[in-house]
């Protein structure tokens, strides 16, 4: 199967079929309605420090997420013909797909790393979408990894 994301001069090329565009259009609503499935606390056992942290960061986080979703929706509408994402657009995609996966995992009640190979899990649209987004994420990670410098240790 052709890779959805391919590294290209200036960024990452994304090319999607009609049905993929339709599936991926579900991402913003998933993430917006799944806040409780996403990490937000900076302190493991300090509610006071957490409320302070959230007070400083909540607005910024919300704006950053909306920015990511706007990028996803704008570039998605151009992806049928193929579109080149610049570095920031590609990262916005990566973050959004990552968060949508967390929301789906939470809905499915995934608690163990074994879920990927667990063929006793009931087949649901959510599980199918999670597998599809895993594949999307891997394609994007592969493309973006090619653009990262690998420092000499």
């Amino acid at each position, binding site marked *: 199967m052709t890779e959805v994301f391919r590294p290209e001069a200036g960024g990452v090329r994304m090319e999607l079929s009609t049905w993929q565009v339709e599936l991926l259009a579900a991402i913003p609503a998933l993430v917006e309605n799944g806040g409780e499935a*996403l*990490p*937000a*606390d*900076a*302190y*493991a056992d300090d509610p006071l420090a957490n409320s302070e*942290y959230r007070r400083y*960061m909540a607005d*910024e*986080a919300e704006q*950053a997420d909306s920015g990511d979703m706007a990028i996803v929706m704008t570039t998605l509408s151009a992806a049928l013909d193929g579109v080149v994402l610049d570095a920031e657009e590609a*990262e916005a995609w*990566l*973050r959004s797909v*990552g*968060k949508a*996966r*967390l929301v*789906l*995992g*939470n809905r499915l009640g*995934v*608690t*163990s*790393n074994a*879920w990927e190979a667990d063929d006793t899990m009931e087949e649901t649209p959510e599980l199918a979408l*999670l597998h599809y987004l*895993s594949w999307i*994420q*891997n394609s994007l*990670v*592969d493309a*973006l*990894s090619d653009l*990262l410098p*690998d*420092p*000499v*240790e």
Partner: protein
Amino acid sequence: MLSSAKQPSTANVPIIMATAPQETIDVESDVRTDRAWNVVVWDDPVNLMSYVVFVFRKLFGYSEAEATKLMLEVHHDGKSIVASAPRERAEMDCYRLHRYGLWATIERP
């Protein structure tokens, strides 16, 4: 009514009294906040290994080998320290990890 003659002395006294203890507190809190905090990433069942490796490389500039070692620590030990920094910087690192959906917290060493 305040006399102009009294103003210099009343103005001086509070300045000295207010400044001295504040400086002491600031120095102490600076020492506290400058001590490095650890940025910890916790294991979760949903994020993919390849994704976690990429995020570590992207955010902290680790080589693929270093990032893979840290990811495997998360996977096998349940958590890994991915950075150490003064509190404010550690909070920012934590925020950047959250942006990618990684379960991160900060703690004193």
